[in-house]
């Protein structure tokens, strides 16, 4: 039985690296039984996009003190630490 979660993917422009990360994470989580409703935005605009989000995944620094769990990772761009990053995302979404 799969679960549904909403994830906000952020990067500097909201159209470049967050697109790559979003695709990679959505595909990988589908295999782990988590359906992600993905949104994208600029890192500077996350506060206004937080409504209903379960997690924020960003490639660049996020504002401090966000009320939603968040992580900053380059793993889906550089390939380094990808498995660990996916485990962390799964844990955060199932937590």
């Amino acid at each position: 039985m799969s679960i549904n979660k909403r994830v906000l993917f952020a990067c500097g422009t909201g159209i470049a690296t967050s697109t790559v990360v979003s695709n990679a994470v959505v595909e990988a989580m589908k295999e782990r039984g988590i359906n992600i409703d993905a949104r994208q935005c600029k890192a500077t605009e996350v506060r206004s996009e937080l409504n209903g989000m379960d997690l924020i995944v960003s490639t660049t620094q996020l504002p401090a003190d966000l009320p939603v769990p968040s992580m900053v990772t380059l793993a889906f761009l550089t390939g380094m630490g990808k498995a660990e990053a996916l485990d962390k995302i799964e844990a955060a979404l199932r937590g």
Partner: protein
Amino acid sequence: MAEALFNHIDPGAVVLGVEKETSEDVIRLLADKLKADGYVKDSFADAVVKREASMPTGLPLGRDVNVAVPHTDPEHVIKPGIALATLKKPVTFANMEDPDEAVPVGVVFLMALNDKDRQIEMLQKIMETIQSEEAIAGLMRAVSVDEVAAVLK
């Protein structure tokens, strides 16, 4: 079969063995070429440089040669494409993840993007290339656009 990354590259904006002092010099060199070939507007170079200062794009790869992927908002772009520079000696970009950290960069992909849904494949191809130590080494060795095309086929 997926399209080769080279098909997204502006052959007139491939510069090999660049000798520049700063990341801004490299960005402006490539942006001028994209502009000359009709990919971007006059405002593109300044917009990329400005964005790089607040939202840097250096990607540390844990190898000898790191990469940067400077880009900016779609309103400065006319049509999507990529400019490529290999650097004779590295220039410093800031780390995308941590702007206080310096990353010595040897390969720069300057990206003109204006539609995330249509450019997902191009973006994924760039990241695949970055993740391949062999491809990056091949780019660093390339002395002609044909050799770049062979690496990015």
